[in-house]
């Protein structure tokens, strides 16, 4: 496993221009993804995680657009690509596993045709028989019978549909897979099956996965590193253990605290306050209105996103001053 990042996001800004004002959906996002790595992306609704996913896929549509920064895929800045070049990247180098599999499959096409049409449009130059075989392989890889390919979506159960979507996403062995809350709509049992499928495929193919969600428990079981977003900005990125055991950003801390634990039954800890509107962000650190540890600089300047500890990146004023007592 090479150490060179397959995906590097550098100071990415995504904005939407609405009648009501500019919405800062993504603000100076910095992220690195290594090959074969599993990265979890968590945040409340409205934190900008889905926007980030769309931005990586180049699918931000007017009235929105990428306002700054770069996204490097194997060193190539994909924000600068033409529409046609980006289309080639989609599905082949970066692919997506959608959230609502119920509606993500074309109702009037057979499953295998939906796997194959992507191959055809990427001009792989393969003949029909080979493509059908590859489609069948993809289906088997997600634990579906080969002849599911001849069926229509309405003939499949929810879990099968989701797995079909995964098969479509991996058929051309992409380098990066973005799984946008792939199990939200499923029951717990199916959730587990689907997550196991994703893990299995991903390790076999060596693809990097960004798993988007807000189920911390699921994250804990699946990911190597955790990225926490808040109000359009990246709050913290840390390896899993460090994120759970010694979170740096107060938001991460409160998120993990709010997980119900078997040991301490009874009280639920929430996070007081509500997420700010993305077009009406508070000055200074975006979390300061709800942060229990906020102090003077938090109200004035936005903290920079820096590697304050080895392998752990955070944007928080608490760590910026060397003279501050280090947190243990």
């Amino acid at each position: 496993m090479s150490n060179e990042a397959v995906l590097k996001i550098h100071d990415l800004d995504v904005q939407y221009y609405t009648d009501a004002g500019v919405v800062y959906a993504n603000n100076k996002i910095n992220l690195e993804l290594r090959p074969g790595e599993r990265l979890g992306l968590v945040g409340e609704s409205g934190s900008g995680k889905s926007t980030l996913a769309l931005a990586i896929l180049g699918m931000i549509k007017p009235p929105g657009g990428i306002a700054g920064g770069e996204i490097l895929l194997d060193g190539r800045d994909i924000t600068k690509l033409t529409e046609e070049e980006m289309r080639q990247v989609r599905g082949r180098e970066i692919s997506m596993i959608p959230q609502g599999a119920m509606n993500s499959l074309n109702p009037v096409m057979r499953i295998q045709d939906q796997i194959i049409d992507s191959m055809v449009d990427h001009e792989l130059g393969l003949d029909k028989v080979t493509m059908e075989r590859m489609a069948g392989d993809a289906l088997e890889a997600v634990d579906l019978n080969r002849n599911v390919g001849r069926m229509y979506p309405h003939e499949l159960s929810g879990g099968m549909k989701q797995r079909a979507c995964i098969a479509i996403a991996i058929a051309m062995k992409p380098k990066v897979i973005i799984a946008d809350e792939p199990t939200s709509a499923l029951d717990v049992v199916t959730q587990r099956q689907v997550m196991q499928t994703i893990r299995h495929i991903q390790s076999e193919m060596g693809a990097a996965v960004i798993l988007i969600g807000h189920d911390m428990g699921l994250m804990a079981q699946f990911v190597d590193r955790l990225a926490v977003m808040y109000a359009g900005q990246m709050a913290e990125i840390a390896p899993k253990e460090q994120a759970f055991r010694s979170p740096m950003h107060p938001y991460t801390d409160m998120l993990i605290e709010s997980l119900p634990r078997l040991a301490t039954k009874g009280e639920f800890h929430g996070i007081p306050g509500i997420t700010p509107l993305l077009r009406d962000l508070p000055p200074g650190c975006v979390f300061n209105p709800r942060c229990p540890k906020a102090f003077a600089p938090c109200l004035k300047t936005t903290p920079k996103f820096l590697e304050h500890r080895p392998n752990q990146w955070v944007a928080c004023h608490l760590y910026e001053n060397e003279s501050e007592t280090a947190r243990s």
Partner: protein
Amino acid sequence: MRYSWSFVIKRFGLMLLIIWSGATLNFFIPKLTPRNPLREKLLQEASRGGYIPPGFEEMVQAYEAKFGLDRSVWQQYLSYVQDMLRGDLGFSISNYPKTVWELILEGLPWTIGLLITTTLAAFLIGSLLGALMAWPKASKLFRYVLPTLLIFGAVPAYVIALTLIYFIAFRLHLLPIGGGHSIGVLPSWNMTFILDILQHALLPALALVLAGSGGWAIGMRGMMVTIQGEDYMTFAEAKGLKNWRLFYRYGVRNALLPQVTGLALALSFIVSGSVLVELVMGYPGIGTLLARSINQLDYFMIYGIVFVIITGIAITMFIMDMIYPLLDPRISYESK
């Protein structure tokens, strides 16, 4: 097997029900008027002096027998239904001894030819243009210019036909003014005759297509807008599919389904429009026949034509019901 016998039979029964209802209305509505127009008409013809059509006495007797005015209404109705079932629509008053059915058969091929081609053309062209109007990646021309052409859809087809006659046929002499084929040319199956027919059919067809496309375009545009918000469109785009494939296989293909349903519902309006266009252009189909019959108050013809049209529509709806499962794999008519 996507079909089951029970489904087919149910739909067939529905078709028969419509035909029967149409025939019944045809029978009872004239009876509801306080006067008996048939009788009056026949008496009028008789008292005109000058010219009494040959066979008039026989016709009066046939009329008496068929409608058996001395029998009860229900008996009359029963014999009427029997006649309908046998396909006996009676004699034409104005063209005795030709039967109603004979005259209808002369005009039917013209009407069916015109109807089928223009309906399909208006549907396909209208739907395609409507889809293009709603597709953000389509050229600006489609998105902004076409909506203005939608206005044609508001005006009745025969009004458009009149305008076309004036400008294209009368002023510019590009196409013939009316009729199905040039006068004096004997119908025969050779190229020149066929071209002649096409020339004459062009203006009526053009009027019908211009008037008809508008409605389909608007419906299709609405459907495409809805579909673009669907999850499968987003996922398809994330797969990196080409623009045209997204448009046709994912967009249009799905939007077409409700449009086809709409087609079945719109059949009666399409027929009405076509009838009037035929009238205006003197096209030798059922429409002109109907207008002439009204003019001459040839009641048997009028009722006969109305019945045949209703039957035609019912049959077409049945055929469309059968086709629908072929288009949408989700619909299966198996009995559960």
